[in-house]
């Protein structure tokens, strides 16, 4: 029976695995590592952010990674896509070109690449994954994959980086996780018992103990985050407190919807103009103050900046690890990084 095999397989780590994952097992424990090694992950889109996510989760020791991307390697990919040999692969498919280096990161993970367009994949395709992380996708595909994840009970992540800006989104539906908390323990009043260490010499540690508590967190669908009614009461104030990268991202997503592509340096000036116009039209349509998106954002949103991918991909990778291992409170539901002003915020938007 398949189930038994998986269970048995996940029971023992080999000595090789123990040596390779030594440091992280010391951090998140053996159980978390066992959950990771059973996780099958689909990564849609392998640009700069995708490369960071792929690296982080393959290193962590998941069971398998499928890279799905129909796009071609462009010059701009050299800013951040380190899994591609750019001297050989300009114009080739991104997923296939990333396969070799991704696999080299960790021979214990089964890595595969698929050059198909996510839009052409039937719904059934998505059923076999425990985690789906979608980058470089259209809004329509993001919403579709989120639907499918909800239906299949898999964990959904999305993210993108535009120049200095980046975001991560998670929908873990109803997510159960364990959290370690420090609890005060009543001091032992009777010095005559067991260890009887005099109070003065007793260390502080004995005053607290670590207990693991089970918690549940509820997430919402991505569409709820994209259809917020900012005209509702109190929402103008909320908009002000919302990280500006949310609105910047919305403008950029709008650009992608209209132009069927991300802004690119080969049409730098016209794209900047288009973005400036979209800033006005979208924020007006959302009925929020236009100043929520800084006017000069058009100067900072081309290509994917490598250090920005590293920050967003680091957070996104860790959230995947956290969700799979069901350890620690996940970030619900957005993380935004703005490399222009350096802010990195978690916010719940729905």
């Amino acid at each position, binding site marked *: 029976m398949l189930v038994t095999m998986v269970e048995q397989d996940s*029971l023992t*780590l080999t000595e090789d695995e*123990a040596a*390779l*994952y*030594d*440091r*992280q*097992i*010391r*951090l998140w424990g*053996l159980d978390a590592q066992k959950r990771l090694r059973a996780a099958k992950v689909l990564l849609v889109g392998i640009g700069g952010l995708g490369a*960071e996510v792929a*690296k*982080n989760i393959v*290193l*962590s*020791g998941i069971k398998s990674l499928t890279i799905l991307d129909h796009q071609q390697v462009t*010059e701009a990919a*050299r*800013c*951040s896509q380190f899994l591609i*040999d750019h*001297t050989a692969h300009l114009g080739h498919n991104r997923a296939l070109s990333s396969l070799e280096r991704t696999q*080299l990161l*960790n*021979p214990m993970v089964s890595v595969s690449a698929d050059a198909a367009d996510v839009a052409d994949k039937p719904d059934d395709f998505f059923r076999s994954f425990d985690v789906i992380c979608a980058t470089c996708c259209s809004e329509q595909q993001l919403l579709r994959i989120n639907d499918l994840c909800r239906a299949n009970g898999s964990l959904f992540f999305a993210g993108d980086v535009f120049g200095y800006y980046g975001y991560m989104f998670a929908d873990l539906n109803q997510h159960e996780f364990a959290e*370690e*908390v*420090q609890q005060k323990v009543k001091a032992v009043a009777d010095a*005559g018992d067991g*260890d*009887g*260490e*005099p109070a003065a*010499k007793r260390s502080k*540690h004995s005053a607290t103990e*670590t207990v693991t508590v089970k918690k549940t967190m509820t997430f919402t669908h991505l569409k709820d985050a994209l259809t917020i009614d900012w005209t509702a009461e109190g929402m103008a104030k909320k908009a002000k*407190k919302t*990280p500006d990268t949310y609105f910047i991202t919305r403008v950029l997503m709008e650009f992608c919807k209209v132009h069927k592509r991300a802004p690119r*340096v080969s049409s730098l000036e016209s794209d900047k103009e288009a973005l400036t116009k979209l800033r006005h039209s979208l924020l007006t349509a959302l009925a929020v103050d236009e100043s929520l998106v800084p006017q000069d954002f058009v100067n900072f949103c*081309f*290509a994917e*900046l*490598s*250090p*920005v991918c*590293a*920050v967003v*991909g*680091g957070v996104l*990778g*860790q959230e995947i*690890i956290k969700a799979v291992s069901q350890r620690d409170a996940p970030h619900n539901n957005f993380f935004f990084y703005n*490399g222009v002003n*350096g*802010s*990195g*915020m*978690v916010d719940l938007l729905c």
Partner: protein
Amino acid sequence: MAASINGVLEQTLQKSINSCKLLVVGAGGIGCELIKNLVLTGFHDVELIDLDTIDVSNLNRQFLFRKEHVGKSKAEVAKESALKFNPNANIVAYHDSIMGPEYGVDFFKRFALVMNALDNRAARNHVNRMCLAADIPLIESGTAGYLGQVTVIKKGLTECYECQPKPTQKSFPGCTIRNTPSEPIHCIVWAKHLFNQLFGEDDPDQDVSPDTEDPEAAGDAGEVALQSEAKESVAGGVARKSTRMWAQQSGYEPEKIFNKMFRDDIRYLLSMENLWKKRKAPLPLEWNNLPNTAQDGDHSAQLGGIRDQRVWSICECASVFAESLKLCKDQLMNSGDCGTLVWDKDDEPALNFVTSAANLRAHIFHIPLKSKFDVKSMAGNIIPAIATTNAIIAGLLVMEGLKILSGNIDKCKTVYLNRQPNPRKKLLVPCVLDKPNPKCYVCSEKPEVTVRLNTTTMTVHTLEEKIIKGSLGMVAPDVEIDDGKGTILISSEEGETEGNMGKILSEFGIRNGSRLKCDDFLQVYNLNINILHVEKLKEDKEFEVIGDIAELQAQASADNTGPDTNSQEDDDDDDDLIMEDEPTEITTPSRKRKANGASDADLSTKKLKRSIDANCQEDEDIVVL
């Protein structure tokens, strides 16, 4: 590369990236990520230095390295791997220590910017001084588990790495270690001391025999009749030197060493009756009569655990003790006449020795036993490092670098990566950089420090190794007594002052109020040390660095529970009336210099702040001996 494509970066920034030369110190966890980010951003003139070689436990995060690279130079392999991202980049790799004399001020002056990706405080102190001397901006970084930090240091503009005192290593009172251990860590420290007594460099601070001066024992020790054999080897100065000699004379016979350490010394402790009035008395072990224990201790010995997570029985401990003792003895013999071993968590016999000895002692004192896996963490000061945290911190390092290269160093921040967002939703918490501390003993106009010690017992050797090098971070000091005669106490020239090393400070007329002028040529650093003579310091400390530093230290420890007054979160969002939980501070571990390569990530920075709502879970990751 971002800087080679127009439109991605601002033009002035693009230009400076294309023309500037960078130094990266460290090619480990943060270093690998950093090199990748730098090359992809378009930096193509980078020098990289790291002393370390690649270990298999690096491979889960140091992604420029693979299994076939184990044992090779980190700097060299990182360079080769990074060249694949941009074959035209000019990367120079040094498999060397940045603290070497070749890397003087002139070396540093060639760079526009220095980035630290280090794992130990000694090297961080040194690079800090070199960058101050060369007047070059330094970006400092560090991670520990899920937490991380990046900060910027510029002479005259910001605090330097040493402006605020770092929390010192956590230490345990000698009598707890020698007489009355109550926690596993006490036994592990004792076992490491035993290792050093038997095989390592002699250190009087690391005595393992019963401490007859324990105030709690109130002088009843030694009055009880004891076997003469046991008496001979304990107590007082005679015994100190003799642990090693005694072991040699007995041919490192496991049974003899076992019975002395775990039977005779314990019997002696039992004779100090006051100690056991309120404690459960220890039970001596006998080599020929070992108890039959099931595996007790922690619960990780379940099915499916890692081999090293199983806790050994007492019989197993004894046989591992004997076996590892023999292997360590062989290593010692092979290291020549005056050779010594340095304890290393990655050396199998050394770790087995400490695990078995610590557990035997734990059993004697009714303390839970620990697995080899756990002992390795605790004895090796392992701060678990993971790829994601390192990636984020390396990204932030470059972002601060871009500000400096855009001419906006005033916009640089100290950025903390938290485990959970703070009440203001911040997962990354930027704080304004502090101004230099005018009393800093490193970056102030006239660096000065006061040291309290006993001038009639301290040797020149101890002054140099433990205080001037160990605590005050000099590398090759010249020390002159400010006595009007210019007496040279310590010279950095080999052989010149060798004869002084064993002598006591008072032999040179050093007494209360004396002043020492120290000069480190490499660091271009002068420091005056004021000596305060004391007969005895608390907790058997050999010395204490005091004065302004002491005040700051007191303040720093008060900050553990109180508000941190030093850094302000950079936030003008003051309409938010929710009071933010004050960030707390956790001690940052460090290790002795001789244990090079021992720990994974010694936190860079003076303090690693996080919100209280992130709990105190990280404490278990940070074990300092």
